């Protein structure tokens, strides 16, 4: 695969655009709780802060490669080419939703665009990703599977069992541990033995004798290079790698959990709400991956400030339409619910 320094200008601009699309989509999800209370039910988890990591990873994909995320799954399909309108419609419970209103925010799925499902149960999607990799191996499709999960999820048995099996079976899978510093409301060093000891979480790879690398997840090009190597390795039949991509979750874990009809919204970030640590949150904002990438691309002449502005406006306009489309889509009829239980 080309290294990040060999990426074309178009590709870099595409990457920036996708990062903006994720951010704006999530902003609109968040605003929906204020502007249209009740339209989003249950628990929604946003990917803002993860944009560089997501896009850096997915920029390494070959066309048929698959993506298996966790419940925090809005960002990936946006990049994979799923209709943003259908994604929003799903989150809005609509029959035009990508899952026809059956799945919701935590269970977005679009197999046609290479994202088969998302599980809401911690760790299980990691095993599903290895399973897809096993199918690719047996069927010799040449696909690589990208498995995304959180730092917290790397404490679930499924994570360890799967990485061992993937290593023994040399499965074509790249495990991307998104270390966003938090497991819901819990800071990582309260629950991870590596973090407590000051070691990187990628050290867990040693338990499986596979490569383990930590990368700055706020830099899409750094992510791109590390993931390229891992994907090449997987495609060459040399088995899995574990990549710890470090970035900061910029929104709280999810909208506040309430019992209807008590309304729910996104509150303050846990850094402030729980730990009273305004400095941490401010530092993360200063390190915003989108701002950083924008500055870099202007700095190296990929685009101008005006170009960037145009992209950002385009994205805003797109997401405005997306919200309109989703709001206009009808709710499914109750009787639809008995469909799809069995194939």
């Amino acid at each position, binding site marked *: 695969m080309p290294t990040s320094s060999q990426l074309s200008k178009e590709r870099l601009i595409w990457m920036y655009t996708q990062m903006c699309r994720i951010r704006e989509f999530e902003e609109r999800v968040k605003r929906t709780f204020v502007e249209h209370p009740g339209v*989003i*039910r*249950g*628990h929604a988890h946003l990917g803002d802060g993860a944009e560089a990591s997501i896009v850096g990873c997915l920029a390494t994909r070959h066309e048929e490669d698959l993506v298996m995320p966790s419940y925090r799954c809005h960002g990936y399909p946006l990049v994979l080419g799923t209709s943003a309108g259908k994604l929003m419609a*799903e989150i809005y*419970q*609509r029959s035009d939703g990508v*899952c026809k*209103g*059956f*799945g*919701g925010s*935590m*269970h977005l799925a679009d197999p046609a665009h290479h994202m088969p499902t998302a*599980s*809401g*149960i*911690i*760790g*299980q999607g990691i095993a599903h990703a290895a399973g897809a990799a096993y199918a690719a191996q047996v069927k010799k499709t040449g696909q690589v599977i990208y498995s995304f999960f959180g730092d*917290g*999820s790397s*404490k*679930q*048995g*499924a994570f360890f069992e799967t990485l061992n099996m993937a290593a023994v079976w040399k499965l074509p899978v790249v495990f991307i541990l998104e270390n966003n510093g938090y*497991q*819901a*409301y*819990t*800071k990582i060093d*309260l*629950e*991870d033995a590596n973090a407590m000891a000051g070691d990187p979480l990628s050290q867990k790879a040693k338990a499986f004798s596979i490569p383990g690398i930590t990368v700055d997840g706020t830099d899409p090009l750094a992510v791109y290079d590390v993931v390229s190597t891992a994907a090449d390795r997987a495609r060459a039949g040399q088995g899995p790698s574990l990549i710890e991509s470090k970035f900061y979750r910029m929104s709280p874990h999810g909208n506040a959990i309430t*019992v*209807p009809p*008590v309304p729910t919204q996104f509150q303050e970030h846990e850094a402030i709400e*729980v*730990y009273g640590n305004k400095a941490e949150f401010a530092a993360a904002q200063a390190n915003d991956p989108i701002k950083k990438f924008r500055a870099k691309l202007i700095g190296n002449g990929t685009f101008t400030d005006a170009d960037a502005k145009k992209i950002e406006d385009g994205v805003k306009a797109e997401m405005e339409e997306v919200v309109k489309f989703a709001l206009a889509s009808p*709710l*499914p*009829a*109750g*009787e*639809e*619910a*008995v469909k799809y*239980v069995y194939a």
Partner: protein
Amino acid sequence: MPREMMFAEAIAVAITEEMQRDSNVVFYGQNMAMTDRDPFVRKFGKDRVRITPISETAELGIAVGAAMQGLRPVVELYMAEFMLVAFDEVINEAPRLRYMSGGQVKVPCVFKAGFGFAAGWAGQHSNCTYHTMMGIPGLRVALPSCSADAYGLIKSAIRDDNPVVYLHHYMLMLDKSPVPDGDYLVPFGVADVKRPGTDVTIVATAWMVKKSLAAAEMLAKDGISAEVVDPRTVAPLDVDTIVKSVKKTGRLVLVDQAPRHASAAVVIAGEVAEHGFKYLKAPVKMVTALDTSVPYSETMERYVLPSEEKIVAAVKSVMAMQAATV
């Protein structure tokens, strides 16, 4: 003088009181006790109140091991489905180690979790899994439907020398109702008649009790007197009180938030088919969730789950069999 308490508050107060009473009670789980400002940490310290990683198998297994050595762990699991990744501990360890040891050890621990969150949490977070824990010798399962029972059952659970799964319904968490003063305990295996009646028995648990009481109110307007019985624990199950009610009313409607064969309703129906058959004037009737996972959209979710209207219709259908040959 009974205190008005929110369901969630009743549980928290009862756990606090039990921790004050017995220093062997410890309390831990994910995303709790994050900082020293946490009220439980403040009262009981970081030895007895702890935060855990997302490691349910270790969390429950540690509770089992600690219980054998004299602690009384209460594990906060948030959602009952999260027990499934560690289900061996619930089904095959905690309730069986005493038996396999020939009575040498005991395993007093409480696995506490919410369930049934019918609020758009979709297919993996809204389920009712209690049927999987029925018929497991050595295991008790509590399903409170009001603040008093929530309070009294968690106290009994913590004091019980056996493993107890304590399931609180998410849709009830903010409901206020009175809790008797003092050290109020609700015994296991004793059903409660939540509303007396003479024409038909409705058996329901947790949120479905609330819906059944609302349905009974509607039925009263139509001149039908429904008795609402809440088993409160499904293991042990108080079949006697249910049969006694059926003996009086001759009719039985069972309401359950789970799909039919995953319900406590069908178990109770089976028991009544053996022990209450002679009192039945009509077939039993079950009002359960449809045989689907819980869909995300509210329209579909509502279609799938039991409702006051469905309960009323079911009661009327068994009442209609009065005249006809059954």
